[in-house]
Each structure stands twice: as C-alpha cells, then as structure tokens.
C-alpha cells in the first residue's frame, strides 16, 4: 500500500527504528483507547487526540538530551508518552482519578511532570509559546546548556504573543526550538482560510530566526531536523523554528464532526502517508525485523495500553479534600 518509498537513512540503526515504531504505536493505541473511554463516558470534557501526528514528537524526542524541556498545547497526550511519562498516570488523569499526573485536577489539557521536564499541557491557544521561551530564559540564565522544545499548532501561529516571544527569544538568544505542528486545520479552519502567508517557518525571518519546513510524516526527517535545530540552540545561536507538516486523522476534539474536510482526504493520508506504516515498511523491507518481531511489539503495546485503561478505571476519584489543596505553595 505505501506509495512512499521505504528507505533506511544513514542516521538510524535497526534498534532505533524499532524504538520509533514502538513509541509511535504506543501513542496511536493509547489515543484510540482514550477515544474509546471517552465514548464510554469515562473521560469527560475536552479530549484532543494526536492520531496521525505521532512522528513529530517521536522524531524530536530522538533529538533531545536528558534535561531538555518540552511544553505544548492541549493536544498533549503524545508529547507526554514520547518523553517517557507513565501511560497509567496519563490515562488516569484523563479519567479524573487520584492516580493521574495532576491527581485528577488537571484533565486532558493540563498535565505536567517535573521529573520528565514536561511543562504542560496548556489550554489557552499560544500561551505556551512565551512560557516556553521563559523556560529557555531560565536555562540560559543558569547556563546549563539545556534546550526547550516549544510546540504549537498552525492555529496558534496566528496569535500575537507568538511573535512577541519570537522577538525576545532572538533578542536574548534563548535556546528554544519553536515547533509548529502544522496539521493544516485550526479546529475547523484550514490554513487556506486563515492566512495568505501559509509558510509559517518563514515568519521567523522577520525577527532573524532561521527555520525550515519538515515532513512530519517521516520520523527520520523530523529527527534530523530536530538535531540540527538543537545544535543551533546549544551553540548559543538563539532560537530555531521547525514547521512540521503533519496531519490529524481525528476531529479537533471528540465532539468535532469534521465536516470541513472530506472523508477521502483523511483516507488518502492514512493510506499513503501514515508515519507508522512507513517505519513498519522500512523495517520489513530492510529486513531489520520480521512480521513476528512487529507482532510482538504490537502485543506489548496493547498490554501497556490495556493496563493503563484498567488503572485509569480502578484508580479512585480524588478525595474531596483535594478540592482545597495545591492552591498555594
């Protein structure tokens, strides 16, 4: 089926490739399960799934080092799994339970892990962009050589505070990679209907920030671009912009009927550009893995995801006292 040419690129070993397959599959299966739990009424409110965009976070995590930070919007489950947060804790937060990363008080859009340097999970479109520049500000102040990945979407890319952050990030040479996950739809508004300047990566030029467009359905391309961006930041040259072209298969949130695009458009993406299928095909045609090897990975992932769903159902609701805690430090 894959119309894309499967190819192994020189910057990856068979083991790494299998790791990316596994990490992307974990996100996909986790999100499918989350969608299912939402349908059963176990997850409430807003729930934005990451299905289709998996190569973005997995590719960039492959370019990160221990101690690097990440911050993103409300479509955040994939980022958390990719940086190593526990699927049980993430799923239990989705169900609003005590075992969740925020003890059930944050929900799908608001999760954090100091241990994994994940700074949220932010529900206000683009607010995380100055926040990410601020994390990078702190790292530069402490001279610790860390880099912050600041993720936002094509929708957020039209918010004013993004450009305020660009200006100061370049002015002060902050070590921040601005990652625009361009999935082509800001909720229901396509990029065509929201801007006449659709090359978001080019907008950094107005502030002196270099950038590039990246194929977000190709995990190796994302990793290579991420390494380049991180090297730029760590060399003290300031921020870097990656506009990663990706695609979300599901609606904006669970309650989105997605009437703004055709079923054929989505199906075509799934059939021809699926990032997980691409790696799978690379592994098989390159004889880096057998069908049985991949089945074993599939099975392992299914078990992790099912266990997270069980944990999320069984973890109790937070005690009522929790209503009044964590308001002040």
């Amino acid at each position, binding site marked *: 089926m894959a119309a894309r040419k499967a190819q192994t690129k020189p910057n990856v070993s068979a083991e790494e490739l299998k790791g990316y397959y596994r990490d992307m599959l974990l996100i996909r299966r986790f999100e499918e399960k989350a969608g299912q739990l939402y349908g*059963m009424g176990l997850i409430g409110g807003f729930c934005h799934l990451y299905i289709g965009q998996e190569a973005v976070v997995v590719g960039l995590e492959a370019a990160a080092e221990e101690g690097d930070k990440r911050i993103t919007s409300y479509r955040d489950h994939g980022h958390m799994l990719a940086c190593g947060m526990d699927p049980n804790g993430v799923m239990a937060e989705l169900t609003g339970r005590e075992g969740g*990363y925020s003890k059930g008080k944050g929900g799908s859009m608001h999760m954090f892990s100091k241990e994994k340097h994940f700074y949220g999970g932010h529900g206000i479109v683009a607010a995380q962009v100055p926040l990410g520049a*601020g*994390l*990078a500000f702190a790292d530069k102040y402490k001279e610790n050589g860390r880099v912050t990945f600041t993720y936002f979407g094509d929708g957020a890319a039209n918010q004013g505070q993004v450009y305020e952050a660009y200006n100061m990030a370049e002015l002060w040479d902050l070590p921040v990679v601005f990652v625009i996950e361009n999935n082509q739809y800001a909720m229901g508004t396509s990029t065509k209907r929201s801007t006449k300047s659709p090359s978001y990566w080019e907008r950094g030029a107005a502030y002196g920030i270099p950038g590039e467009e990246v194929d977000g359905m190709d995990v190796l391309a994302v990793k290579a671009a991420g390494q380049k961006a991180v090297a730029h930041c760590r060399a003290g040259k300031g921020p870097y912009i990656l506009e990663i072209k990706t695609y979300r298969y599901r609606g904006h949130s669970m*309650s989105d009927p997605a009437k703004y695009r055709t079923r054929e458009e989505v199906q075509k993406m799934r059939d021809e550009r699926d990032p997980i299928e691409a790696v799978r095909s690379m592994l098989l045609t390159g004889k880096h893995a057998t069908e049985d090897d991949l089945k074993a990975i599939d099975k392992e992932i299914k078990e992790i995801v099912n266990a997270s769903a069980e944990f999320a159902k069984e973890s109790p609701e937070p005690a009522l006292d929790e209503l009044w805690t*964590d308001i002040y430090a």
Partner: protein
Amino acid sequence: MATEILMPALSPTMEEGTLAKWLVKEGDTVSSGDIMAEIETDKATMEFEAVDEGIVGKILIAEGTEGVKVNTPIAILVEEGEEVGDVSAAPAPAAEATPAVEAPAPAAAAAPAAPQVDLTPDWPEGTAMKEQTVREALRDAMAEEMRSDDTVFLMGEEVAEYQGAYKVSQGLLDEFGAKRVIDTPITEHGFAGIGVGAAFGGLRPIVEFMTFNFAMQAIDQIINSAAKTLYMSGGQMGAPMVFRGPNGAAARVGAQHSQDYAAWYMQVPGLKVVMPYSASDAKGLMKTAIRDNNPVIFLENEILYGRTFDVPDMDDFTVPFGKARIWREGEDVTIVSFGIGMQYALEAADKLAEEGISAEVIDLRTLRPMDAGTIINSVMKTNRCVTVEEGWPQGSVGNYISSVIMQQAFDYLDAPVINCTGKDVPMPYAANLEKHALITTAEVIEAVKQVTYR
C-alpha cells in the same frame, strides 16, 4: 472474544443520540479507524469509528433509532470463526454513575466570637528609624533580595538603562548588571509569559509593568498560567514571582491610564495581592513577596512613590501577608482601607476627631490573604464600618468586606456598612471632573456621619 460496541458519548454533554446510519453491515470486517456509523447528537452528525478489529457479528440497534442512551450496546464485534452468542459472557460495562460530589461548604459563619488576630508589632520597640520615600523603600527591598538570592531578577520596560519609568529601579542595573536587570521591548503579553515560564524553570522573576493598566494585555498569563498551574499540576510546579507596578489613578492621564485593579486580582485563587500605603509596608511586603512561593500581585501607586515615611533601619525587615495594620485606634466607627485610600481614611479620621468622632483606621495592606479578623474585632467594638478605595463601586473590595462583616458580625452592626469608592465612570481628563470621579476625604467624612447618625 466477542465485544459489545456501545453507543458513544460524542460531546462533553451528550446523554443520548440518534443512530442515523450504519455504514457497515453484519459480516463486514472492520479495523481500527474504519467508520462504522453516523450518529446525530443535539449539535451535529458525527462519524463513529471502530476501535478494535473484528467482524460485525450483529447489529443491535437499527439505523434511524432515536433517543439511544449513551453506553447502550449497539452492535457486537466478533473474531474470525466466533459466534455472536459468546458475548453474553462478557460483562456489560456498567454506566459509570458519577456520585454527586458535594463540595464541603465554606465554614459556616462562626458565632460572633472575637477572632484571634496577630497583634505583634511590625518591628521591635526601640528600633532606629530612617525617613524614606516609598520609591526608595521598594528599590531597597528588591536590591536586598537580589543580593541574597541570585535567582531573583527584574524585567520590564525601561527598568534598566532608563533606571525605571518612575525611577523605582534606580541604581539596580549598576549593581546587578544586565543579566539580572533586563529591559524588555514594549510587549506586556509576551514578557509576562516569559516571566512565568522562567518561574516554572526555577527562577524568581520580578516583572514590572510600567503601570497595571498595561498588564491587562498580560492578564491571561497572570491568571491562566501563573495563578492556576500549581493547582492544575497537582502541586508539581507553580510560579514563584512578583508582578509589580503602579496601579490606579495618577493625575490627569485619562481613562486608559487610571484604573484600580485591586478588586479584579483579589478575586483569583492562586494569586496573592498586596497594596501597601506606607514606605515601611512597601519595603517589608516587597521582601515577603519576592520570597513567597506563589505569584504575587504588588499594586503600587504613582502618587505615593514620592511620599516619605519612617522605615525601620533593620538588616532584614519583612512584613507578613494577611496582617492588617491599625493606624489609629477609635471607638465610634471603623474605617477600612488600603493603598492610597489610606490617605483619605487618615485625613477623614483627623477631621472627625476635631468634631468629637473617634475613628479606628485599619490598613489591610494585603487583600489576598485578607485579615478579616482585625476588621471583625474592630466592628465588634465600634459597631459601624466605612470602607474606602479608589476603584469602581460594583464588585468592589468594600462590597466583599461588607459581606464578610454581615456574615460574621451582623448582630454587632448598628448601621449598614457604607462603601466609599471611585465613581462609576471611566476616568475623565478635565481637572474638575477628575476630582469628582475620585473618592474624596469629604465623602468619607459624610459616610462616617451617616453610619454614626450624626
């Protein structure tokens, strides 16, 4: 094993829907992501995708059926060679009945017993004093904290080379250098967000707004990012930082530069709100604010910057949050104020004394946490209360104080509480109109006479 497919909830509020159309039929093989049916909610028609792989063994709810409750089995998915009947072994997922959560009600109004309050003096008796302006006191507080903690830094418009738009940061660039005293572009939303991010990252930023009027551009970062993150993260991370700058009316600068935000910020859980009047409070509270592990809104006043007060000459003078200061004791009425409102309250008390009315004047100093105990104790003695502030009347700080007094000391009141506030208008430019828009000492005196029936 056969699995039941349940009627999904497709929006945060959906309880039932119409199964508009089946896009698969019995015997079809489906895999994850295939669209199985169209379901109409009250808002839209949604496509419903398969989550698991399998064969559609049986369709239980015919298309066109209305009012299908969420979690009703609508079809059965079987594996190759499996019978539909096998499903009976699978326990039907029980609809999760969310138990009605009763939030613990706020502590019921205590019987009117005198609250315990902290009456210790702010500095030890016999401490040497020196005269200082509010401006100097604020600068000294920041400098002292920057000397003792190198994660503290100051950022804002004109704070460094210009030495502060109102000269509050005079000399700080020379002492601490450009790494820690940082001029920003004019970009409040952006630098407030960078400040909050730096606080998440382990620093203790002091973010200066040239005036709090401009902080309206940044209020999303202040409230949604700084104030709420500790809660949303289950206590993992928050924003230990200070947002400071002049607040309220200066003189003749018109509507957009003359708003008092005390009541706005006071409403937000997660924030602490400070509004000092004197130089000693400005200094002691600023030092406490910088050390506090929460976001603190520090509301200064341009007119007060140049006022001189006695400040204790101590190595490390701090004032705790949530402790009001009684400026003068009295018997007939309690006047409660804060910030520049204290100027009118104290002037009024002087004039009232000449007429034989003894006013007790309380300076709240911090609005969140608020020292309600000191107010209640005073009202239990005087039985009358007038509040004084420059902000607008509807939803004012005084409104809140009135409600607290009503709930905790209703039986002690001999007159309704009067809230003296700025007028319910945008600030006019014309000198005579501006004077009328602001609260005046005469209005405070008039209010006191009303509540004391003189």
